[in-house]
């Protein structure tokens, strides 16, 4: 059987099953659907709890952040672990240091955005843009409590700023500013920060990731602000890991794991 016929059969069967399931969905946009307000006659759904109660408990007006980093913080930690695992898998597949000569490494070669007159416009634009991108990324990380944003988004932007350097100049430029050693260390460190915010409450006698008890350490008034501050902490951890892995993936993919030349 040719793959096209097989694919068509699979698609038709799956499509029919899915459409059959859709037939009794609640209307699109219905605020009374079970997902939005709970099963009829049952308890209200968790989303109502989040909308009504979570601000009082966490003092974070962005509900997505409070659910992501606190209520379902365990998910988010493993989401970050997924990023780390993907990074490690890519290094395991691509990274090779054995074949090439290591001797050419070193600061001797002038890299292109650092004083190459043929690239002066690109180099200058990149130099101007990168700090702005990074500052904005830090804003996105820190302002995730009040507006859409957070560790993943900010981390991707930070990673993108290094990728911009690599694109405007060459990979050595970027690696000179963010070396393999530092991105490996920062990637692990990010999750250590996240999990550390989970383990410290365990030491203090509460469950994993119970941020409320951290008020003793963070010296806040009340567990609510402790949760709020801890969320910022874990977002920073997430941002570190995501930034490092995003740049590392780019560096490895663009140079087939040699981390030389590239592009």
């Amino acid at each position, binding site marked *: 059987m040719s793959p096209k016929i097989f694919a068509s059969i699979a698609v038709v069967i799956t499509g029919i099953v899915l459409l059959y399931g859709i037939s009794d969905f609640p209307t699109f946009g219905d605020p009374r659907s079970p997902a939005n307000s709970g099963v009829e006659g049952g308890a209200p759904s968790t989303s109502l709890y989040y909308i009504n109660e979570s601000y009082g408990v966490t003092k974070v007006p962005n509900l997505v952040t409070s659910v992501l980093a606190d209520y379902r913080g365990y998910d988010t930690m493993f989401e970050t672990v997924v990023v780390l695992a*993907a990074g490690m898998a890519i290094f395991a597949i691509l990274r090779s240091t054995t074949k090439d000569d290591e001797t050419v490494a070193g600061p001797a070669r002038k890299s292109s955005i650092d004083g190459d007159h043929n690239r002066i416009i690109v180099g200058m634009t990149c130099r101007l843009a990168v700090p702005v991108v990074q500052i904005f990324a830090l804003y996105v990380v820190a302002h995730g409590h009040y507006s859409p944003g957070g560790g993943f988004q900010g981390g991707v932007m930070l990673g993108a700023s290094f990728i911009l350097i690599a694109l405007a100049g060459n990979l050595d430029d970027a690696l000179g500013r963010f070396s393999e050693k530092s991105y490996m260390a920062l990637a692990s460190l990010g999750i250590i920060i996240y999990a550390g915010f989970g383990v410290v409450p*365990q030491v203090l006698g509460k469950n994993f990731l119970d941020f409320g008890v951290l008020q003793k350490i963070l010296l806040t008034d009340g567990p609510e602000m402790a949760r709020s501050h801890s969320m910022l902490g874990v977002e920073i951890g997430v941002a570190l890991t995501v930034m490092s892995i995003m740049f590392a993936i780019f560096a490895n993919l663009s140079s087939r794991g040699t981390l030389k030349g590239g592009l």
Partner: protein
Amino acid sequence: MLEQLPALILLAPLFGALLIGLIGLHDRRACFPIAFTALIISLASAIGAAMRAFTGGAYNYFIGGWEEPLGIGIVLRVDALNGLLLIAIAVVAVLAVIFTIRPSSEKDTDKTAYFYILFLLLCVGLFGITITGDAFNLFVLIEVSALTSYGLVAIGTSRRCKMAAFHYLLMGTVGASFYLLGVGYLYLKTGSLNMQDINTILTTNATVAQSPAIVTAFILILVGIWIKMAFFPLYGWLPNAYSYSPSGSSCLLAPLMTKVSVYVMIRVMLSLFGLEWVFGHPGWSDLVVWLAVIAILAGSIMALAQREIKRMLCYLIVAEIGYMVGGAWLNDPNLWGLTGASYHILADAMMTLCLFLFAGILFKYHGVSEIGDLGGMFKKMPITSIGFIVGALAMIGVPPTCGFFSKFYLIRGGIEGGHPEYVAALLISSLVNAVLFFRIFEIAYFGKNPAAGHSHDHGHDDHDSHDHDDPGDAVTTAARPMREAPVYALIPLLAAAALIILVGIFNGQIIELIRLTFEIPATVVSNLR
């Protein structure tokens, strides 16, 4: 501190992986001790957490302390069934990590650290899948274990493992996506992600429980898990992925990945939808049991056709998956099928570990991968052979190994549930296993050691899928003399063999523990002995 054990099971390997990420890249000698210590801590906490469930019944661990209302946070739930599985995973992981020690003559390469990080993160994923009580969290951890296993398959130096890993990735992602979609349908109808909560809604609210969306959700979740566990028509990725991956990886992947997926299926049937709901749909049980019968027969027949040891074992896994899926769906009144399937998860993890360790030893230390090259093995490697014989006998189902008892309970379930075709398939498959393994016994006992270079004088590209970190050396030094493998390779093999027998001897106690989770009338439990 004791109540923190459920979280500690995962955290130990997680921190181990992160520590290796921090220091392992600079000093590769640190990798193994860190990994080993982390897994030992996991094993200890798994035993502790499981003991509490054995004595005090199932209990919850609320991450972040979010207890009320149920479902706002994420819950870890330990009961007797997953307590046993947690211990089994930890044991397999410890034994597999011992096997990854390399002879001091081989030098470390830059992939060592990545290998151990992926290894530990895979363990994190498997522990997490087993222990979680949240339907969406299960998806995240499935992806953790999936991404790490793609890396572990592709870390080898073989030319073919990359392609195998790519197919594995496509299939694995589609499977996980179907699962995710199923959870979405459940969420749409129940507004909750917590397994207990969903189960309560489905059992109390008949209109929700019978709606097409819930039925679709179940089908999607089931198909997704079937892809992940390589159930018969969807098994295509498994043989390549496991046989071309390096020995160190396949010793962890083969015993655990598929078994944990079977556990997920049982957990979904048991705790998410409830057995009454699942078996309330007439015809489903028969359909799945027939599929399982085909899986068992197909897996056994394809295993017969293989020349390579690892590939043969891979097809046997496909057949074993058929045992477990069929057993879980037998729908016999006393749930012996489900019990047998759950017991077989443990038994099969040990058997597969034992046999894959054996295949790994042969491949890693002797460059042997084909059945025909095993001539004279029993004389030259008596200790390795003992391990292999125990594993093979368990696969065939000879008492007192665990393989016999799991088949005993499965057959009992098949008879009580009125599925003679399943019983027949089990018996035929045992027969095929007997043929397969006695053929190997014969070669290993009577056969002569093949002439030097017999299997290697013709281009070794095909099976250079060697160890994760001896790029290209091993097979070229063909036909190394057959003698006992080093102690650190024999310890896990013999330990696995011992466990096969122990799990068999203590089957009564284990079955009793498993049945704690099923809420069966007390009279049935007392008839057990």
